[in-house]
């Protein structure tokens, strides 16, 4: 998400002068530029490890229990020749999407996740997964996963599968 890096880094320089949220800006900028790569494996630390162990598939991208899939609806591209961040070969990513906020048990943070659809081929038919944390009906499109988000792709608007791309951390209290 290079373009997102540019947008956020540029604005953070401006806004840092006006708000007192430098630490947040720093962390967000670092995260997006990859300077601070957070491990996604469960950390062996007391309570968090216990919770992760109770749902062993919470870190498996081919399982519906994967923590990032908290508001996904459709087939997991990770089971269809793609991954959480890539569309399967021969499909066309949707430029429009819905956004979820999911809790990562590994670091106890909430992340904004973009559920772009991969389009232009018929239903993948594998790894169907529908979770709806903080999902809202169709009249709040930015939080709705019922819409075929391939809809703006013109001729390539058949629905194949969905990805889940991390956009950034949601500060507590948002």
């Amino acid at each position, binding site marked *: 998400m290079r373009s997102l890096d540019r947008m956020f880094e540029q604005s953070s320089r401006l806004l840092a002068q006006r708000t007192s949220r430098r630490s947040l800006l720093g962390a967000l900028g670092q995260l997006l530029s990859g300077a601070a790569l957070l491990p996604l494996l469960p950390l062996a630390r007391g309570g968090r490890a216990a919770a992760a162990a109770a749902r062993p598939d919470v870190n498996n991208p081919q399982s519906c229990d994967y923590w990032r899939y908290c508001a996904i609806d459709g087939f997991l591209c990770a089971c269809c020749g793609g991954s959480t961040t890539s569309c399967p070969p021969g499909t066309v990513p949707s430029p429009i999407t819905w956004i979820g906020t999911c809790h990562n048990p590994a670091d106890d943070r909430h992340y904004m996740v973009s559920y772009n659809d991969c389009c232009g*081929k018929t*239903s993948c038919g594998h790894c169907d997964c529908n979770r709806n*944390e*903080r999902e809202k009906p*169709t009249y709040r499109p930015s939080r709705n996963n019922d819409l075929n988000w391939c809809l703006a792709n013109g001729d*390539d608007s058949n629905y194949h599968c969905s990805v889940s791309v991390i956009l950034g951390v949601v500060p507590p209290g948002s």
Partner: protein
Amino acid sequence: MRASAIMFMALLYLVAGVPARAAPASPPPPLQAEQLSVQKLPPASAHWVYVFDEAFFNEIDARIHLFDGDSYQRLGQIDAGFAPGVNLSPDGTTTVVATTYFARGSRGTRTDVVEFTDNRTLHVTHEIVLPAKRAETIPSLFNVAYSADGHFVYAAYITPAASFGVLDPEHGTVLGEIDTAGCQLVIPSGPNRVSSLCESGRLLTVTLDAQGHEAGRAMSEPFFDTDRDPVFAQGIRSANGYAFISFLGEVHEVDLSGAQPRFAAPWSLVSPAERGVWRPGGVQVGALQRALGRLYVPMHKGGEGSHKEGGTEIWVFDLGTHRRLARWPVAPLGLAPLVAVQVSQDEAPVLFAASTAADVAVLDARSGRLRHTEKHLGQTPWMLLN
């Protein structure tokens, strides 16, 4: 052989007609040559149900299965293309399908159409080509809908901007498109009013002139809070409008019979102890038997984010008193959780329910007694029309 043995054998032949040693009987007459025909539908019945099957695993191949809730026979099929909106005409004689086809099946030039099927023959009679803007979303009564007098058909558009097309079903033409400024879906009322659900919790109502062009519009006051307790977009037809059920189980009855929508005070499906614990859920989240005033809602135990889970119980309410009359657990009936319910409007009503296992159950709507389970009526049956 001894005489008794002979007697015994003779008796056997007489009684049992054992032919082994008798003269061979003449074979039955040959089957007659047959004539191939096309099955005629019986006259429509109040206990017919149109089972909309999204066929999500083969989404370009959605269909509607027509099922007889008395004979438990599958009567026929209406094809429905890709992620369609479907509905019935007010007089029930036509099924309207708003759908999408790609020129090469799964790819190629996209064409959006509204197709009309004669429910007496299940033939597609005509189609209207739409701009490629059709709302491709979860089934509801408000993706495509007729005006109350059958004069207009409205097709919701999401591009992702929100608008709707106004169609003339009789002449097969697109009359125009009305921008709804972000508010979604087409909730018809009267001969010429269309309401849409807004993120702000308001209802936008557009009034049309005789040519299907906008004559005016008005925004209601908010009647729900999207952040705290949104309503399912799937509405339930009531005597004078629709009832909208919220995620936490509030019932918002909206009277659309007048020029302005009127909102009754919401009432709750759940007690304070049950709130947040028992929730409505599924796709078609309720059905109303209008004469009896009975509301049927699939309910499940779950937390935030469980609003699409199927009901493990059907809760039955009296619309007048708001009292819960019954709870019908679903597992003892051999059913998986329910994602859609519908009820017939005749004097001996039947309740239809579609489960996550793609079974459609037929129940007595008064007693909850299970009459029949039709296994695998479709791949993913998510909405029931009648």
